[in-house]
């Protein structure tokens, strides 16, 4: 079963995403901050991580950068969740190494579609 890491400090959104992904047949590891996200990414080796950009402590961008810097996790697929639409934030996400980004508020349906698209492309 494909493991997906979900990191968001907002419990409601975390549950929403986890629920939608589990419904889509994925195994979800949900964490509430950047530090936990890095730890879980190293131990559970998920195929994909959904990272909220603004989290207390390590931000989603910091986590993304750390994962890309570690050879063990460098190949992981990463989708950023951002509440900001300003271009510089999007650029920051990409320069840190994100594969895609979704702006809040997002449609859970759309998020699942994007995740599945990335996963199938990675498998191909």
């Amino acid at each position: 079963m494909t493991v997906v890491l979900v990191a968001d400090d907002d419990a409601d959104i975390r549950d929403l995403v986890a629920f939608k992904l589990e419904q889509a047949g994925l195994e979800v590891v949900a964490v509430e901050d950047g530090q936990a996200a890095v730890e879980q990414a190293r131990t559970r080796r998920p195929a994909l991580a959904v990272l909220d950009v603004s989290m207390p402590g390590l931000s989603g961008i910091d986590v993304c950068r750390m994962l890309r810097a570690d050879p063990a996790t460098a190949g992981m697929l990463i989708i950023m969740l951002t509440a900001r639409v300003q271009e510089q934030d999007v650029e920051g996400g990409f320069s840190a190494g994100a594969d895609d980004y979704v702006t809040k508020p997002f449609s859970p349906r759309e998020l699942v579609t994007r995740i599945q698209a990335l996963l199938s492309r990675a498998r191909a």
Partner: protein
Amino acid sequence: MATPRDRSVGRLLTRAFGALVVLIVSCGAAETTALLMQHRVVDELSTHVQPLELTNSELRSLLADAQRGLRGYLLTGDGQLLDAYHEARSDYAVVGARLRGTASSRESGAVARQLARADAWWALAEEQRLAAPRSETAVGYVAQGKPLFQDFTAENRALDAELAARAVDLQKRSSRLSTVTTAVVIVLTLLAAVTAILAAVVSTRRITGPLDRVVAIIGRRRSGELDIRADATDGPTEIRAVAQAVNEMAEEGDRIRGGEKRDAARRAEVRELGYRIRAHLKVEEAIQEAVSGLATIIGADHVLVRMAPGQTEVPALASLRDEHVGGVLKELADCDVSWLRSGGVWASGEDAPDDRAAPPEAELLACAAAGAGPALTVAVSGGDECLGALTLIRDTGPAWTSVEMRLAESVAADLGRGVHHARLFEREQHLVARLQELDTAKTDFMSTVSHELRTPLTSIAGYVELLLDGEAGELGPQQRRMLEVIGRNSRRLRELIEDMLILSKIESGAFHPSRRPVDLVVLAEQAVAAIAPAAAKGRVVVRTEVERPLLLDADPDQLDRVLMNLLSNAVKFTPADGAVTLAAHRDGDEVRLSVADTGMGIPPAEQQSLFARFFRATNAIHRAIPGTGLGLAIVRTIVDNHGGRIAVDSTEGAGTTVTVRLPLR
């Protein structure tokens, strides 16, 4: 006469008058000599020759009387006749002595000879007298006495003739002398006249010519030929001195004019300096400009600016080479300038300083400590307020002239204005910076708020979607309708947040314009392509009528926002089978962009309020057409930021045309 070496008219006239005096004196001398000589001639004639002649003839007649008496007695014996003889005999002694006395050495020989003859006759006559009258002897005596008497007569006549000749000679001499004297006097007089005329003519010629030339030079100078000089080597000394004096006056005049020209040049430089001082927008730079400019133009060795305390944005001190920091101006820099009032001027060595500037003892001591030369302190005034003091010091040299003082005052006035302006400008800059900070804070706030709003919105919209997708079990029709209302309103909320964020960003864009040349047609086509799906969904046809290219200076993102907002509004308010037309043309130095639709239109009363934030037309609300009421406010703000205008032309039920005019640059 003057030699070429000495061509003085004075010398010439002195010599001419000298000659005249000599001639006149000679004249007089000649006359006097002639007179003296004539006097001697006349004197000799009257006191010597003529008395001698007279005495001589008297002697002759005396002897003639004696002879006649004696002869008559001898011949007649008449005693009376003998008495005549005796009388003559006694007179002879007197007359003979007188003749001898009167005779000079020249005649003494002749006189002696004559008297000897007379004595010889007298001796014989005495013998005859003793003879008896009328005797033979007596007659013989008469005959005997005759030759002796004739001898005497001959001597007497000879003397007489000689004396007569001498008298004639003397008269001739006198007449000759008078002729010669007259001739000499005439010659001398003529000579004097000629000399006087010559002196007059020569001196006149010597004076008038050169003098006329000097006068002509003065005339030409007066008519503007200032470079011309009189010839100081021409003419006599006096005229040369006059020419020299004229030239010296000309030099003096030139010097004065040169000084005036220099002052005028300095005034012009000070004016330029004033412009430069006032052009500076930073107080420090304005002060530094004044300090260095004054040192050069007015020639000061030290320049110090002290600003009155209590002024922000202004440095308290400035000097030419920072001598106020431990240099010669240190003590002066420590003196405060509260003694100086607006418009005050004080120059060292001034006995009576004006009442707006009477420096205290400490200031005087500090001035003395800064250098022995003259010091000048001028108030830097801003209106009635004394902002500070400008002090100029010369190490050595002359006191400050009134011209220099006025120039320094002028610079101080310009500095005052410059400082005033620069302070105002700096305050304005601070204000602008503060406003920008506020604007940034607002943008940050908006950004944070939007973020904070998005997170709960994400949950609401996400869970509503899950419910509507039936992920939590089947929904009844009423439940579904209610969840759809929640979903629609969360979408509306999301749009509102986004529009507010955009508006905030655009408004702060007034401070950060990022314009570049863009082709409006390209942007318009992209916008039409972007709106196409929505238009297709509402079965609205979108047409474009553009003139290409339409290059203008603008922010492309903002322009895109204008196009999108106008097109989406048009499509949104146009019912099925309607049409939207986007037209863009060049109109003079503007671009005219219009978006026309065949939609519901806007009630006339509401057209004015269309661009107000959160305003929505009543007919749109009634028909529940979604919208934030910010779209046109955003468009209006962007158009304003680009220096353009926007207008709406709408007929309710027929359609609306929004026209935007943007300047090309």
